[in-house]
């Protein structure tokens, strides 16, 4: 399973492709402003990097876990390897272990928060239906990946496809 975003993509931009679906929720929960959300959305859609300081402030829980994972694995902080290790493996384990709010949240929300590989089963402009491991269907936005077609394999986080798989 290899992601399609080129290795030349700035690691801050790669991180944002996966972290952006959370921004929707930090906005919903009043932790970032509408203007900050729109800045993040623009950057995430266009694959542009956002300053590390901004990402560290807005996505503080993810950054804290990335730092811990960097110590455990020896991968450098702000390296592609570390971000992949986090979002492809570590992130779902943390949710399953019930860290922090995850232990108190409805299971359906924890499952939405996890990142899964999925297959596109039907498409329309801007959003597609994907089949998740286990067979459940979910509608996801394609703003972060660009247009997707039936049969494409993608990584999904909440209501977004984050990366095409090759």
């Amino acid at each position, binding site marked *: 399973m290899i992601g399609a975003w080129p290795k030349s993509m700035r690691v801050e931009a790669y991180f944002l492709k996966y972290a952006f*679906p*959370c921004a*929707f929720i930090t906005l919903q929960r009043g932790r970032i402003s509408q203007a900050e959300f729109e800045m993040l959305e623009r950057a995430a859609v266009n694959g542009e990097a956002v300053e590390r300081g901004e990402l560290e402030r807005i996505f503080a829980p993810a950054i804290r876990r990335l730092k811990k994972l960097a110590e455990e694995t020896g991968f450098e902080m702000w390296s592609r390897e570390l971000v992949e290790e986090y979002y492809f493996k570590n992130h779902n384990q943390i949710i399953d272990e019930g860290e922090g709010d995850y232990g*108190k949240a*409805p299971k*359906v*929300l924890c499952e939405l928060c996890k990142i899964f590989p999925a297959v596109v089963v039907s498409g329309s402009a801007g959003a597609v*239906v994907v089949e998740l491991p286990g067979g459940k*269907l979910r509608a*996801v936005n394609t703003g972060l990946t660009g247009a997707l077609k039936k049969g494409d394999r993608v990584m999904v986080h909440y209501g977004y496809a984050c990366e095409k798989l090759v």
Partner: protein
Amino acid sequence: MCLAVPGKIVEKKGNKVVVDYGDHKVEAGILTGEFAVGEHVIVQGKIVVDKVPEEQVKKWNEFLNSSK
């Protein structure tokens, strides 16, 4: 923590719904799944992503209000 706030479907016309969050409402589209007026759902980027069982909504909203 990227754990969302559910909203309640208050209107449904074909594949379009209006979801109420108390202080504001949003319009969203259904691409897959069955959703009915009165059910609580998670909406992202103007699409309905999943529903949250009723008994879990109350408990979660209480937690969110206590952690504000």
